[in-house]
């Protein structure tokens, strides 16, 4: 995504995407939504009640965030995990940079973490002379092809197997093949060296459990386990909103997360990390650090967007969104695309990001599919509407959007309303179609309009009433 402050024009970017890219995204999204429905239906007899419970739990944690963050810090520290706080990306990068310098290493193994994308960590580490290597297969492909992830769970949803094959061949990872098993094998072989040699491993954390002082990660490939357990130093970074009150609540969240995300009952690896190697353990990192980052989350806390922080990053809303499927993740030009991205992107970066991402909340038909699939029942359409309200008057409206000031006057005065109806009928569409009205022209570009009815409802109704009276 661009780090420029130019306003993101979602349709322009969407139109630039090749049919190949859009087909990849459409195909993968559909598959995942079907898997999700199947997994929920087969394994839960009332997923709706469960997700409302999940919503309650997440809301409770957010409503009492200071309390649970304090409890988490206390218990994490007791477990030997060193806790850090970063108010923004710059502070987080500094902390990570310092830790890596002290560790005196070259290679850093990284597992997929959207927070590290958010703070643009890799370029920073490279500028300090380190070699951060992405080890999640999708992120690895993204890194070696100088691309960006377009989905928060499946980073290369926009790339097909053939394209991966070409990228691997170009980077000298092996002979050209389109067999996904062999391609995966190339990545496995190449990254094994990294897992062995990396002196530092950096990961995210999906949840931080306050009462046990453990953080929880969910993954499938095994690379996260390598990054967190093999090097001598492990650094995890996550948002302040990820704190969970108690470990038994994980039953609710884990029952919903993977099923909503990929249709699996659970991801292959669910790790409850208690930190560095203990006296009574055989191995593990010498040092384990967890960084809590704000970076704009407090902009959403407490107000109209409070519930958005309940998000557990399953990606279901991206998968189901017809707009995401049309413009692909690239259309949003943000670390967080799709419906959840349409709320997070304008808000996390304050005034600047509001301007840059002002189109995102409007690029929605408010169909509500996102809210329907959300495992923590976040009312996303309501938030998109609140954002539109917040943006109204602060940024110019999108070309083609009608303005409603005069309209509202006419529509709250019946005499004017009725007058406009008869005027419209008199003029018909002939003249109207050549009016320089941006909305009308926008409509007419791809659609016809129906003819004005020969008789209006109101005149027909009057006639109907007369008939009724006559018959009495």
């Amino acid at each position, binding site marked *: 995504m661009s780090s420029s402050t130019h306003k993101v024009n979602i349709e322009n970017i969407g139109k630039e995407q090749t049919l190949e890219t859009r087909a990849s995204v459409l195909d993968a999204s559909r598959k995942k939504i079907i898997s999700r429905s199947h997994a929920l239906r087969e394994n839960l007899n009332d997923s709706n009640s469960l997700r409302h419970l999940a919503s309650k739990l997440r809301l409770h944690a957010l409503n009492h965030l200071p309390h649970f963050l304090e409890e988490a810090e206390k218990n994490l520290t007791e477990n030997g995990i060193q806790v850090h706080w970063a*108010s923004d990306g710059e502070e987080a990068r500094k902390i990570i940079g310092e830790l890596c310098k002290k560790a005196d290493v070259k290679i850093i193994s990284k597992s997929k973490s959207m927070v590290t994308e958010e703070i643009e960590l890799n370029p920073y580490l490279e500028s300090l002379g380190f070699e951060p290597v992405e080890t999640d297969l999708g992120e690895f492909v993204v890194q070696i092809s100088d691309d960006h992830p377009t989905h928060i769970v499946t980073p290369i949803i926009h790339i097909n197997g053939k394209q991966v094959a070409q990228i691997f061949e170009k980077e000298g990872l092996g002979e050209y093949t389109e067999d996904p098993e062999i391609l995966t094998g190339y990545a496995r072989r190449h990254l094994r060296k990294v897992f062995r040699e990396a002196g530092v491993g950096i990961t995210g954390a999906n949840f931080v459990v306050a009462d046990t002082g453990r953080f929880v990660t969910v993954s499938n490939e095994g690379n996260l386990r390598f990054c967190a357990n093999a090097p001598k130093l492990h650094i995890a970074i996550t948002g302040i909103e990820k704190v969970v009150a108690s470990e038994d609540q994980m039953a609710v969240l884990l029952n919903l997360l993977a099923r909503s995300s990929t249709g699996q009952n659970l991801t292959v690896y669910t790790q409850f990390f208690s930190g560095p190697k203990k006296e009574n353990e055989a191995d593990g990192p010498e040092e384990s650090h967890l960084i809590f980052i704000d970076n704009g989350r407090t902009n959403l806390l407490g107000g109209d967007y409070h519930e958005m922080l309940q998000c557990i990053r399953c990606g279901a809303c991206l998968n189901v969104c017809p707009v995401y499927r049309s413009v692909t993740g690239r259309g949003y030009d943000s670390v967080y695309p799709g419906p959840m991205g349409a709320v997070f992107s304008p808000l996390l970066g304050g005034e600047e990001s509001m301007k840059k991402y002002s189109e995102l909340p409007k690029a929605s038909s408010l169909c509500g599919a996102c809210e329907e699939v959300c495992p923590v029942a976040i009312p996303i359409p309501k938030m998109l509407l609140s954002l539109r309200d917040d943006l109204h008057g602060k940024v110019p409206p999108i070309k083609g959007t009608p303005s409603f000031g005069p309209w509202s006057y006419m529509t709250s005065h019946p005499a004017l309303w009725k007058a406009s109806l008869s005027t419209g009928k008199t003029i018909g569409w002939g003249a109207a179609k050549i009016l320089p009205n941006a909305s009308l022209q926008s409509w007419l570009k791809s659609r016809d309009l129906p003819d004005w009815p020969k008789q209006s409802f109101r005149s027909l109704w009057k006639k109907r009433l007369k008939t009724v009276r006559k018959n009495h």
Partner: protein
Amino acid sequence: MDDQKTIIFDKIQSALKKGRHEGFIPEAIDPSHLPDLSETLIRQNKSQDPKEIWLRFEKQITDLGDTVKLFPDVSSLCNWLKQYLIENNLNTGVMDSDASEYLGLSPGEFGLSKVYLANIRKTLFESVYGITLVDFAIAETGTLGIVSHQSRSRLTSLTPDVHFAILEQSKIVPDLVDALKLHQKFNKNNSITWITGSSRTADIDGILIQGAHGPKKLFVLVVE
């Protein structure tokens, strides 16, 4: 660092004070008064019958594309294992020392295979198979639970191509609720890993490939 924490907490406090439309007052509710977790709601009517539990566990592992085998005792398990290693030419392995004790297997020759204790990094990374014990399992999802411990490496169940996981049948619990209750029995100082199948990825064209960075094959060997 304290400074950063203060900045963040100040922002959190003022954000929460901003108030919500419904007049929600966070201070009026005791934070440690957690929302009720209804077990019925979370379990969603999963069977608690031991036979059903075993069948579900078996089905889950098989659906994941992995293998589960039931043995009447440890020695029949060892015999099967020896046989399997020979037939499939798995020549180097690692095992945790508690697995070694449990199976009565010493490091050295095992059939035609060499197996080492999983305490040397080099052997962990160069072994084709790994043998670990499993502390508990979850029937609902076909999950194995491993608690980290001094007699175990964190990597024995991760680095090799093939993972043999040894489990006692009585340690299988019905669902996630029970598994998390079990967590309370272990020292929270120790990490717990849940393994649900062999490592995998579907990043390329959405095609599921078993064997990403972790094991390609998982054998769950259960002792009655």
